[in-house]
Each structure stands twice: as C-alpha cells, then as structure tokens.
C-alpha cells in the first residue's frame, strides 16, 4: 500500500448559521451520505470569515478548507456573503504565492434546501484533496504550528484591497 492509499485528508468547513449549516442539517435529516473527513464550524454569516481562520486551519494541520454560505442575493444579512466571496478571491491569490494548491480552499453556496448539493460538494472536495495528498505546510504536531500561525504581525493585504 502506498501512502496515497492510506491518506485521509482532514478538511475544516465553515458554515453560515442560516443557509449552509441548515443545509448540513438537512443532509443529516435526509440521511445523505458523505465522507467523514470534513469537520464543520458554525459562524453567523460567511461574512464573519476572517481570512486568518483559513490560514490558521491550514497551518494547524488541515489539508483543506471549505467555505460555505448563502447564495448570492440570499444572504440573511443582505449582502455579507459577497464580502466572503471577495475574501475568498484574495485568499486564493495569497495561497498561490505561498505555493498552496488552489483546490485546497473551496467556496460553495448552499441554501438551506440544498442538503444534497452540500453533501455532493463535500464528497467532491474530499476526493480532490485526497488526490493532492497531505498539505505539508503546517505541522505534524501541535508545537510547530504556532511558528507558522499568521497573526496580526503577518502582512496581509489591506481590507481596503479586499473591498476593492
């Protein structure tokens, strides 16, 4: 058996309270199956997603990060998911510079009625990340993590640029 065969990626998922977390609930209620590699964190809104959260997750050993929110135009907070979209695009650029494969960070819109869709997206992402193999960026143990953890010291592009 090769390492690839054994590799089970760990993916941290961020959901918004109103649409995508409910989509995950619905996937459960409807017993739609998906692989157990994803672990979800509930935020109020995808707009709450601080890019640092994504950095932190990858630096701490996650192999991928899934960002989810309401469909554009359906945000519970009117338009905050557009801000998530901008930050996601920014993150993509930063990751490209850091040499991280773009497939490791994925943005998915899922309404509260789209349990099947969310499960499908999770399944696809797990397979994609599995194919990429482990992300040797963070740590194999917790101690090393904090050396890489981006904090406010790290130079992040200004929010003004994010908003642009």
């Amino acid at each position, binding site marked *: 058996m090769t390492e690839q065969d054994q590799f089970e990626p760990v993916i941290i998922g961020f959901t918004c309270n109103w649409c995508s977390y409910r989509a995950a609930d619905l996937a459960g209620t409807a017993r739609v*199956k998906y692989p157990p590699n994803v672990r979800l964190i509930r935020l109020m809104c995808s707009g709450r997603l601080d890019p640092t959260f994504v950095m932190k997750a990858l630096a701490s050993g996650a192999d991928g990060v899934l960002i989810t929110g309401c469909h554009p135009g359906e945000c519970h907070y009117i338009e905050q998911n557009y801000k998530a979209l901008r930050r996601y695009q920014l993150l993509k650029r930063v990751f490209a510079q850091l040499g991280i494969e773009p497939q490791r960070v994925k943005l998915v819109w899922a309404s509260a009625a789209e349990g099947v869709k969310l499960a499908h997206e999770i399944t696809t992402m797990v397979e994609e990340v599995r194919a990429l193999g482990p992300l040797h960026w963070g740590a194999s143990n917790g101690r090393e993590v904090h050396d890489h953890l981006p904090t406010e010291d790290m130079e992040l592009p200004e929010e003004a640029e994010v908003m642009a």
Partner: protein
Amino acid sequence: MTSEIQTKTSFLHDPSNPNLRFLEEVSAHTAGVSRLEMCIQCGTCGGSCPPAADMDHTPRMLFAMIRAGFREEALSSNTPWICVSCYHCVVRCPQGVHIADVMYTLKSMAIRAKLYQDSTAPDFSRSFVDNIEKYGRSYEFGLATRHYLKHFPLRLPGMAPMGFGMLTKQRMDIMPHKIDNIDQLQAILERAKEVEGLS
C-alpha cells in the same frame, strides 16, 4: 441533477435481487444516464408517440417491465423497433427519462439475445452498418435495393417509379463512395468492439 441520480442508482446494487439486475444492465448500456428508476408511469411518452398504435407495449409499460425484471418479454417487444426517434417523449417526459436512448439500448440487447420478433429492422440496421464499416459512408442504393428485395419483394414494383425517379434526378449514386482513411476508421471500430466486449 446527475449526482443525485448517481447516488440513487447505488440503491440498485442489490446482488440478491435478479430483477434489479436487468434494470441495471439496461442503464449500463445506455449512452447517457437513463433515469429509468425515475419513471412515474404517467404515460406522457405513450401519449406523445406518433406510431404508438403499432407498438405492442407503450414505452411506459416497457419501463415497468424492465423494472420488474421481465427480461425476455421486454427484449422481444416490437416497441423499440417501431420507435421513430422523434424525441417528443424525451422533451415532454416530466421525469427526464432518456426514453429514445433506452429504445436504442433495448434494440442492441435484443439483437444480442436474438429476441426480436421480426428481422426486418435488425437486418436493415445491420446492412446499413455493414456499408459504413466497409466504406465509411452510407450507400443508399445498395442498401435500399438489397433491403427491399429481401423484405418487401412484392412492393418493389410499386416502389420502382420512386427508385427510378431518384436515379434519374441523380439523387442516388449507383456506386458507393469510400473515405480515404478507411483503415483508420476500421481500426477504431475494431478497438471499440473490444471495449464493448463484442469481439
């Protein structure tokens, strides 16, 4: 939509149930995703079908038979052979079943199982395909004369004016046309048959 179906078809994998195997087999031999398991027996297909009167089962009934595992009955039905590929049923089907393509599947399975009742249609297809495999192009004159001679000899005199007309109007070539790289085409078709498990 596709993903939804693919999750669903996995429910069909029940090796203990031979009836479901026929449904799986038909789905596996269909070009796209058949969606046969989605049929709600509403009859839109049978209602839309222009030659329905000549069929021994309406398409809907055929799908019920496939799902019930009535293999022999389904493959010996004349229905797929009567299908004119008009796609009315396909665009009207409320469940998006790929009806016309399932008909093609049933024909090919019936030919393999030698379960068709009347050889007219399979012979016609065979002759048509023989020409293509030989020349790379269809060959209407050879096909029509050979086919009518075999299957409708009594109709030939009636058809003669039409055939004569087609010839004099130069709408039918007496000689077949062959493509340049027929070897390449034949190699492709050979390999395709291997993939299909036919050779």
